[in-house]
């Protein structure tokens, strides 16, 4: 009898080497349930799937998705008796509904040359080990990145390695465009560093506010009319009124300049621009980006009725000391940043104006008699320690000083005038940031500082002085994390307190206030008084905000709540009386400020949005005088409503439009009654409203071109007591249009242009005059309050720059010509001394400013 045939024996089971994830059926997405399909898979002797069929169904949609997926599986073939063989197996495919509630972020983007040509074959490596290679269109993509900062290395065999840094947030898709200027690799023996050429990171878009415009520093520097000052770009954004020449005031959505709050790295500062508006307070070398939120912002911010400006400074270089210097007609600045010992990095910068020196060399005249020349300086310092790529501690300092003086000597005592304004402030802050692997982010910024300001005038013998010295303290702390798969929550506290000493003497009417009915040049009242007072204003506002993602991420609902308690303490309730002694005043209040915003992505290219918010602003310390103001002034409040949409018309070209309405109450105004009570020179009975719409047609930096057209149609009104008729706000501008573009010609040449058009500010018409025989001067009689306007403004500015690169150094020389057509734009209405003749004060004539920036 022969040997019986042996039963075949499975000596090696098949092993799945390529898994294909089945798409969760769209039709089942609304249910969001789990499902499993049991399949029988036939695997060929080469490991391929030769057949598949459903054994246990989960419904036709799941079955089809599972079959499609497993047909793409690849196995290491099974072996029977040691030889590859076909086999059938049963396989359970599990469907798990995963809504877009990731604890990861996405980094995607494109690498291209400055002329816009995409670069393929560039290796993009992250410091967590992930890497990708750019495709033919220069694109790369990273999924599932844990939140945090990543070092990004770009390299190609024939090119130098470049490095930059990105912050990835959970649930966010960070789109970056890297414009690079590659140079051939150094020849052998060349010891030049290979990792320090410049990368320009443009337009990272992380939508956080319902309406905001964020501009990258490198783009902003190229805009004509800004003289290379990155932060001056804010004046060109939608919703911002054109400031009077040389004023630098930020009027956003018809709010008073002091109602818009400015933050640098989370620290509030009193102004964005130095006096005269010629320069911002942070050198461009240190600015990473600037964002303007004109209104309806979320609950983390408050204490302002107007907009919000957030300046982010750049992180110091991790690789080596870098820096730059800029010199032009206005000022000179230097900056340096880089690593120091261990994991520490530093940044230092300083700037000082020299316009007064330059102009005084050019003329023998005492220029202060003709032009008020701003004198300013500022300095910044930062020391940063990175505990890890996702955890850092930063100690920062910022100081700024401004002086503006003007005056005229005359034999005529009525014509002797002198005005001196000063503002100094300093800030020290500590910032701790940590991003956990689960997406939770912690950000804590305690800060401390001092604000000192003074305004002293002499106008034909009428003196006036206002000095304010404040010690300020703030703390901003927040935690953001995933609460549920579809809800991201933020909770925090925003604390601010100021202790202020103020002194004022002189004319009651100086300094002027919004709503004053007066004519330009009208002499101040000769009624004078004096007061010194001290106040403490404090507020600790806890806030929460949730970002609720629905419809697969297409719908975001962001409710927020801010509890804003505040107190005001003033040392004098009534004017000083030596025989009685001081009686202080204390007031406090608490308000709940709801905020809500929604974004609905109608498609990949269209989003609509709406938002509502309530805001409160404590009184200004200078308004709390028992003589000139009111120690019991309460907070003013505002409501913002907006509705709008954002549309990507073409790749790189977007249109954003927003309609808005704001209403404010409790604004401090001069007491309108003929016999006001003591310590009620100001009362909080003013009301205001602004409404309008803004458009932003923006082309992102591409092919060396970027720019935008911003247009705002707006009406802003005030009334100085309830029930009175509304009048135009002093800073109302019906039309504000800004069109700007910059183009990289190649070979280091850059050109740009900016055109601005805006309505003139309202003014009160002078209808006649009467003679004041006691003071020997004419006083105007006035028509309806703000019943006329200054003529419209139109100006074209151009800029040209050329950049040379020497190894790791770069030199840029630029010419920025403001008002290239030399148009005489009216800035103010001036009157003859008897008000019988009126003419316009015109803004700057053609003004070329040449400068150079050196970077290393």
């Amino acid at each position, binding site marked *: 009898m022969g040997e019986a045939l042996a039963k075949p024996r499975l000596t090696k089971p098949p092993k799945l080497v390529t898994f294909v994830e089945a798409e969760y059926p769209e039709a089942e997405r609304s249910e969001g349930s789990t499902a499993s399909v049991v399949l029988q898979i036939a695997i060929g002797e080469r490991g391929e799937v030769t057949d598949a069929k459903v054994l246990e169904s989960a419904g036709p949609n799941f079955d089809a998705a599972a079959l499609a997926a497993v047909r793409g599986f690849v196995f290491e073939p099974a072996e029977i008796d040691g030889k590859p063989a076909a086999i059938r197996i049963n396989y359970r495919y599990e469907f798990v509904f995963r809504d877009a509630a990731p604890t990861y972020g996405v980094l995607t983007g494109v690498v291209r040359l400055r002329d816009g040509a995409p670069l393929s074959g560039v290796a993009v490596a992250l410091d967590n080990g992930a890497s990708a290679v750019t495709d033919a269109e220069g694109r790369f993509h990273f999924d599932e990145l844990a939140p945090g900062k990543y070092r990004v290395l770009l390299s190609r065999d024939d090119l130098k390695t470049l490095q930059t840094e990105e912050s990835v947030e959970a649930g966010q898709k960070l789109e970056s465009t890297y414009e690079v200027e590659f140079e051939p690799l150094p020849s052998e023996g060349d010891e030049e560093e290979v990792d320090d050429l410049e990368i320009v990171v443009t337009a990272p878009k992380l939508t956080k506010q319902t309406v905001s415009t964020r501009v990258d520093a490198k783009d902003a520097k190229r805009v004509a009319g800004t003289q290379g000052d990155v932060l001056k770009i804010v004046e060109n954004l939608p919703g911002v009124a054109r400031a*009077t*020449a*040389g*004023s630098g005031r930020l009027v956003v959505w018809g709010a008073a300049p002091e109602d818009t709050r400015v933050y640098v790295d989370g620290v509030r500062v009193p102004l964005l621009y130095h006096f005269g*508006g010629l320069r911002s307070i942070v050198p461009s070398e240190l600015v990473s980006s600037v964002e303007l939120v004109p209104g309806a912002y979320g609950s983390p911010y408050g204490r302002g009725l107007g907009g919000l400006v957030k300046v982010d400074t750049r992180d110091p270089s991790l690789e080596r000391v870098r820096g730059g210097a800029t010199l032009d007609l206005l000022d000179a600045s230097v900056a340096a940043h880089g690593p120091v010992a261990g994991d520490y990095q530093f940044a230092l910068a300083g700037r000082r104006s020299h316009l007064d020196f330059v102009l005084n060399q050019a003329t023998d005249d005492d220029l202060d008699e*003709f*032009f*008020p020349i701003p004198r300013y300086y500022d300095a910044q310092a930062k020391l940063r320690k990175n505990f890890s790529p996702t955890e850092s501690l930063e100690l920062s300092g910022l100081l700024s000083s401004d002086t*503006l003086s003007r005056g*005229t000597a*005359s034999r*005529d*005592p009525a*014509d002797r005038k002198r*005005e001196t304004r000063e503002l100094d402030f300093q800030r020290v802050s500590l910032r701790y940031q940590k991003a956990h692997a689960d997406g939770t982010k912690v950000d804590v910024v305690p800060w401390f500082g001092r604000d000192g300001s003074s305004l002293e*005038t002499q*106008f034909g013998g*009428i003196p006036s002085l206002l000095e304010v010295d404040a010690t300020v303290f703030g703390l901003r702390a927040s935690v953001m994390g995933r609460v549920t798969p579809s809800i991201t929550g933020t909770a925090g506290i925003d604390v601010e307190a100021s202790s202020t000493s103020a002194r004022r*003497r002189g004319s*009651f009417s100086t*300094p002027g206030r919004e709503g*004053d009915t*007066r004519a330009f*040049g*009208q002499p*101040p009242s*000769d*009624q*004078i*008084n004096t007061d010194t007072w001290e106040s403490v204003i404090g507020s600790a506002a806890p806030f929460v905000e949730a970002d609720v993602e629905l419809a697969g991420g297409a719908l975001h609902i962001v409710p927020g709540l801010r509890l804003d308690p505040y107190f005001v303490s003033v040392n004098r309730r009534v004017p*000083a009386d*030596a025989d009685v002694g001081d009686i202080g005043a204390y007031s406090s209040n608490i308000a709940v400020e709801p905020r809500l915003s929604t974004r609905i992505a109608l498609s990949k290219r269209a989003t609509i949005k709406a938002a509502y918010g309530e805001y409160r602003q404590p009184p200004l310390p200078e308004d709390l005088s028992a003589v000139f103001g009111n120690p019991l002034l309460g907070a003013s409040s505002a409501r913002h409503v907006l509705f709008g949409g954002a549309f990507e018309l073409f790749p790189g070209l977007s249109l954003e439009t927003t309609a808005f309405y704001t209403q404010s109450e409790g604004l401090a105004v*001069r007491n*309108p009654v*003929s*016999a*006001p*009570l*003591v310590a009620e*020179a100001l009362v909080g009975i003013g009301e205001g409203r602004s409404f309008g719409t803004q458009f932003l047609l923006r082309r992102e930096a591409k092919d060396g071109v970027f720019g935008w057209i911003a247009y705002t149609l707006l009406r802003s009104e005030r009334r*100085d007591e309830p029930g009175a008729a509304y009048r135009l706000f002093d800073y109302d501008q019906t039309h504000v249009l800004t069109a700007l573009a910059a183009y990289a010609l190649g070979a280091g040449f850059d050109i740009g242009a900016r055109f601005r058009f805006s309505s003139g500010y309202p003014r009160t018409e002078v209808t006649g005059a*009467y*003679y*004041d*025989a*006691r003071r*020997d001067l004419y*006083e105007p009689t006035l028509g309806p309050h703000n019943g006329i306007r200054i003529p419209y403004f139109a100006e074209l500015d151009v800029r040209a720059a050329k950049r040379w690169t020497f190894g790791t150094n770069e030199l840029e020389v630029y010419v920025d010509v403001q008002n290239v057509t030399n148009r*005489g734009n009216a800035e*103010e209405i*001036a009157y*003859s*001394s*008897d008000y019988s*003749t009126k*003419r316009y*004060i*015109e*803004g700057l*004539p053609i003004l070329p400013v040449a400068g150079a920036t050196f970077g290393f």
Partner: protein
Amino acid sequence: MRTKLSILISLAATTVACVPDFDTESTLVTSPRVVAIRSVPAEAREGEAVEFEALVADPEDSGVEPSFSLCLARKPLTELGPVNPACLVRGADESVLDPLGSGARVSATIPATACASFGPERPEPRPGEPAGRPVDPDSSGGFYLPVVAFLGSDVTLGASRLRCDLAGIPRNAAVELNQRYRVNENPAVDELELVRADGSSVTLRDGDDAVTVERGERVTFRVRWSECPSESECGDGVCGAREDAATCEADCITPKGCTGAERYAVYDAESQSVVERAEALFVSYLASGGTFEEERSDARAGESFAENGWRAPAQSGPMQVWGVLRDDRGGSGFVSALVQVK
């Protein structure tokens, strides 16, 4: 004169701009105009009688006279000008304007509520409320009762300085101020001189024959006033701030002021004490022809005269010249002269 309006006249925010010139002949008088209103006495208490005198610059000698009214309406804080605008309307309600009549000189009585409406006394409270805010003084510590003169379509605002007791100041300071304060005396022009380019001068007196100047000639007008004693000294004819009837009968039984730059006591709110200051005087110039170099001029330190250049017109004829001497406590004095241009 040719007035250049500088941007610097503004305290507004415009920093750098191109400033227009105004070719305003602001010292030229071509039609009758009230150029000064003098209260006699210069300072008075509630219930006291005063006279208001108008200097009408009338190149045609038409003899027109203004009509006067007392302004009774308090000025709200929202009004940045010197007077309630309701008082500038001719024929306003009598609760606003109290007519005083017409003429170069009219009489009035300081209203009993003047210190509450225009001075340091707190105004009558509204029902159920405390009394209101007092009016702020000027830099000389003065409060003023407004008077309005209407001449044709022109409106001119004048004032009488109010003598009111200060409230809300330390008791010691109030006592000291009462002892040391001397009411203002209207300044007076002692002499008006015409100084030629060669340094020769001639004194112009009202009623004298007109002095002759060449067409286009530049001359200087010099206005002189009395020197006031810088220290209180008994027997100097002025009852100074540190004298009284007990220490110096000669000067203070009937207190005498000085028609120049007087020294006066004033309560300084900042130091909460009584301090002594000297008046600042300045002269305003007007003419029916020619051009003054400045609208006003004042004295240099230590001098008691002010001067101003005047270029005679290109055409011949008589030219009237007016000068108004003002102190910074609301007082004023006038002078006028005739110049023949050939």
